[in-house]
């Protein structure tokens, strides 16, 4: 069953429109909740009061004052309040909640709530935060900081023949799941609550709600409702919205629904962290990486939320899949007064991939090498050592995905042809990016999670997979049954996934970090093996069974347990030191090579992406059709990040507050996308599978920027690559508005044609 593409288990309901998302639930007596938010980005709350017009009895008001010490959202740190009570740190921060029987009545009641805030001076941009911190380190809040050191990068840079420096920036990117955020909370037993909502991590919400309500764990039940896309955007914020709804439900005694409208969702929920990445790289004349000095600066916004973990993943992926003997990486996440960024598919890795993959092309140009040549010269292979000292021992497929993508795209021939083409207004370019992604939680994360998954035999003979990992479109609830079907040799139809419900499923961890198939799938595979063993104990060797049902009957008759559990065990030989950032950062990595072909109008700066190819090694494709869908969707999100999706702020508030201004790709914007599945099995993954979900997002933006650089001769180092930026980049040379193209390396020029500066140090301009 692994490697086949049966119809998805959720397909039938979704195609006839009978799937009930949270906004579709019919709940008798439900009230509607709304959130009252700060109008300023920084300040001190003076008063939050209901005036004489507030319709007590017909509406309820909840403020943070009544919450006391429980007013903290349990996350990486317990810092962010559910409702601000004193300091306000971003425009739109929740301050009070109102519920009433209808949305209209709730809004009317909200008019009778007076919020007064004394404003103070906010800090809006990462650039400004970085400058301020340089002048006075104590003047900016630091959400997280970490360093990775291998060898002596400073000394190696001093001795390097060539040093190339560059700075790359990315903006906030909105997940833009099409179903907005939403939850319903019911008043529960003994001060608890029952929550249903569109969410990725039932036990995150459970943990946060137990803390908020101060009740026993069993008195909070969290259920996931069918989730219309998430991409990380429903990882942390459902804990907040769930808390809000639960507080209102407790106050009014009715179930309360909070569904954000798109405007609220775009403005105030977490996005991808804006970033500034500085590279200084020492290379030999023949293009070998000698030293890498990398600084990763993330905008952590108003509260810490998930930032330490995002920063960690960012620094751990910052070198790209290249080996370098001397590496010094400094990561810092600074506090500003924008809404707290959070998780978005890739989780820090797309930002650093844009930086290194743009930078490596600039190095290639300087060394007169083709993009594929420079990469191959430095690529991670079996036995390579990462910046943290991890020795890569298996399923290291960077070179294989590179080769697959080069072949499928006819890269070398096109690169040379485009480079040699006449310098007309309309020009074509091709670019590539080679990326990696560590599967599962970083470092000791999986050990700390200690996930448990279960497989039970139900009364009707079905096998029920019990995990807290949700179906949110990515196909998890089809792939997990396939793993069991493969192991037990039973038809897929008799295996199902329980709808995640904290009263029914063990905590197998959050649905994040490309971990569901690789980590939880492995647990389920082990559960299936336990079941198989138990059946053989009860019914004798498998070859003697008449059928599976007969064996099941024997097991039942024997009175043996009908539920099998497996707990996470780290692969042997894996060690990670969180304090020194040394060791095995991830058990295994997935690799992707993305190629983008496009045409540009060098006069207007317009870019038309014609084709994208992504070769992805994921160990083993459980369901190839789902895998292709993941790759295609991820590639388009990456292209959106590269080309279209702008987030700008004014006074700390995002300008893009609707889908008319926050532009995600439509069917007309999407190019032809060719997914190539590469399978280099991982011994500890189910059927050999590694992580997939996030991998395809990293490469498209840098591949696009590299293709634009080839086509136009203009290196855009700030995302997105807008027409304005392309035009502006061409404006530096009035004598020749169209700049020279980088030369293709078919006939390698001698180094003397472009000698390194004597010191080798400095901000080299690649295209000028």
């Amino acid at each position: 069953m692994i490697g086949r593409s049966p119809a998805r288990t959720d397909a039938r309901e979704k195609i006839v429109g009978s799937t009930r998302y949270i906004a579709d639930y019919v709940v008798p007596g439900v009230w509607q909740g709304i959130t009252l938010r700060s109008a300023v980005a920084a300040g001190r709350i003076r008063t939050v009061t209901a005036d004489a017009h507030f319709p007590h009895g017909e509406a309820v008001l909840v403020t943070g004052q009544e919450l006391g010490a429980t007013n903290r959202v349990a996350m990486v740190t317990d810092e962010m309040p559910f409702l601000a009570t004193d300091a306000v740190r971003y425009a739109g921060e929740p301050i009070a909640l109102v519920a009433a029987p209808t949305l209209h009545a709730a809004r009317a009641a909200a008019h009778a709530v007076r919020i007064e805030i004394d404003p103070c001076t906010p800090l809006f941009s990462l650039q400004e935060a970085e400058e301020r911190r340089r002048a006075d380190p104590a003047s900016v809040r630091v959400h997280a900081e970490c360093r990775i050191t291998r060898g002596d990068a400073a000394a190696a840079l001093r001795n390097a023949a060539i040093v190339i420096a560059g700075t790359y920036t990315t903006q906030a990117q909105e997940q833009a799941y099409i179903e907005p955020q939403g939850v319903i909370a019911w008043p529960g037993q003994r001060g608890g609550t029952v929550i249903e909502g569109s969410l990725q991590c039932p036990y995150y919400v459970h943990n946060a709600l137990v803390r908020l309500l101060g009740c026993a764990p069993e008195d909070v039940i969290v259920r996931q409702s069918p989730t219309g896309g998430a991409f990380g955007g429903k990882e942390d914020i459902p804990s907040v919205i769930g808390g809000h709804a639960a507080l209102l439900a407790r106050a009014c005694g009715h179930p309360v629904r909070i569904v954000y409208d798109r405007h609220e969702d775009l403005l105030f929920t977490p996005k991808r962290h804006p970033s500034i990445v500085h590279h200084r790289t020492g290379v030999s004349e023949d293009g070998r990486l000698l030293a890498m000095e990398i600084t990763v600066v993330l905008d952590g916004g108003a509260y810490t939320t998930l930032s330490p973990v995002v920063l960690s993943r960012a620094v751990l992926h910052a070198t790209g899949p290249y080996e370098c003997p001397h590496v010094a990486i400094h990561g810092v996440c600074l506090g500003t007064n924008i809404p707290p960024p959070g998780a978005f598919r890739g989780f820090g890795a797309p930002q650093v991939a844009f930086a290194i993959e743009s930078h490596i092309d600039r190095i290639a140009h300087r060394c007169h090498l083709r993009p594929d040549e420079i990469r191959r010269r430095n690529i991670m292979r079996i036995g390579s050592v990462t910046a943290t000292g991890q020795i890569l021992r298996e399923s290291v497929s960077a070179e294989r995905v590179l080769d697959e993508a080069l072949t499928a795209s006819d890269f070398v021939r096109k690169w040379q042809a485009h480079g040699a083409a006449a310098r007309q207004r309309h020009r074509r370019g091709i670019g590539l990016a080679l990326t990696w992604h560590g599967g599962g939680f970083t470092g000791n994360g999986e050990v700390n999670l200690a996930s448990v998954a279960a497989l039970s035999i139900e009364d009707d003979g079905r096998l029920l997979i019990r995990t807290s990992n949700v179906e949110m479109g990515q196909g998890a609830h089809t792939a997990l049954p396939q793993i069991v079907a493969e192991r037990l040799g039973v038809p897929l139809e008799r295996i199902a996934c329980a709808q995640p419900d904290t009263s029914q499923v063990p905590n197998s961890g959050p649905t994040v970090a490309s971990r569901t198939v690789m980590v939880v799938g492995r647990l389920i595979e082990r559960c299936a093996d336990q079941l198989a063993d138990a059946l053989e104990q009860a019914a004798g060797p498998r070859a003697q069974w008449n059928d599976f049902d007969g064996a099941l009957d024997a097991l039942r008759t024997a009175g043996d347990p009908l539920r099998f559990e497996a707990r996470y065990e780290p692969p042997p030989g894996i060690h990670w030191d969180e304090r020194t950032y040394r060791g095995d950062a991830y058990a295994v990595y997935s690799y992707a090579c993305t190629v983008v072909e496009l045409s540009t109008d060098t006069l207007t700066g317009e870019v038309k992406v014609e084709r994208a190819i992504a070769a992805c090694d994921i160990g083993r494709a459980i369901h190839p059709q789902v895998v292709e869908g993941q790759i295609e969707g991820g590639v388009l999100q990456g292209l959106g990040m590269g080309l279209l999706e702008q987030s700008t702020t004014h006074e700390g508030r995002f300008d893009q507050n609707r889908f008319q201004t926050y532009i995600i790709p439509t069917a007309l914007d999407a190019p032809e996308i060719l997914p190539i599945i590469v399978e280099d099995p991982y011994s500890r993954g189910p059927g050999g599978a590694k992580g997939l979900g996030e991998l395809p997002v990293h490469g498209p933006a840098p591949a696009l920027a590299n293709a634009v650089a080839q086509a136009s001769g203009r290196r855009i180092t700030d995302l997105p690559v807008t027409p304005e930026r392309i035009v502006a980049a061409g404006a530096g040379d009035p004598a020749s508005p169209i700049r020279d193209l980088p030369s293709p390396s078919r006939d390698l020029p001698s180094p003397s044609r472009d000698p390194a500066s004597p010191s080798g140090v400095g901000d080299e301009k690649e295209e000028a």
Partner: protein
Amino acid sequence: MSGAGHSSPTILRVNGVAREVASPPERLLLDVLRGELRLTGTKRGCGIGVCGTCTVLVDGVPRLACRLPLGEIGEREVLTIEGLAGHDGTLHPIQQAFIDAGAIQCGFCTPAMVLRAKALLDRRPDPSREEIRRALGPVLCRCTGYHQIVAAVERAAHVLVRGKT
């Protein structure tokens, strides 16, 4: 909220049935479908006519239910996703093609995509890939990259054309 009231009820022809609805004529079709008729397959993704997930067919033409007051529909026939499969549950060939081609992920845009595909194929049984992309353009999908949806429409076109010959 029942049909009894000051204004006379409106007859809305939806999915082949004339339904008596109590909503006033200025109420948006999306709210009538979702709120009063419980036809929640029609989605609210943005509420301002940009995401396309509220698409229904009105006399075969795709319309945004979040922009369309009940009173403007008159005698015309509304088709929602719930009306596409046969009464016995047999899927429409377009629905089957979406399943076969893997065109469904989170499912939130799926009803609108299917209805847009139907409007296209009813008008142009053998569309080019470009025409398909143009037809699907007004509905946002964040999951798929659109390729498998386009492939589903191509597959449905083949099935429908072959079925007729």
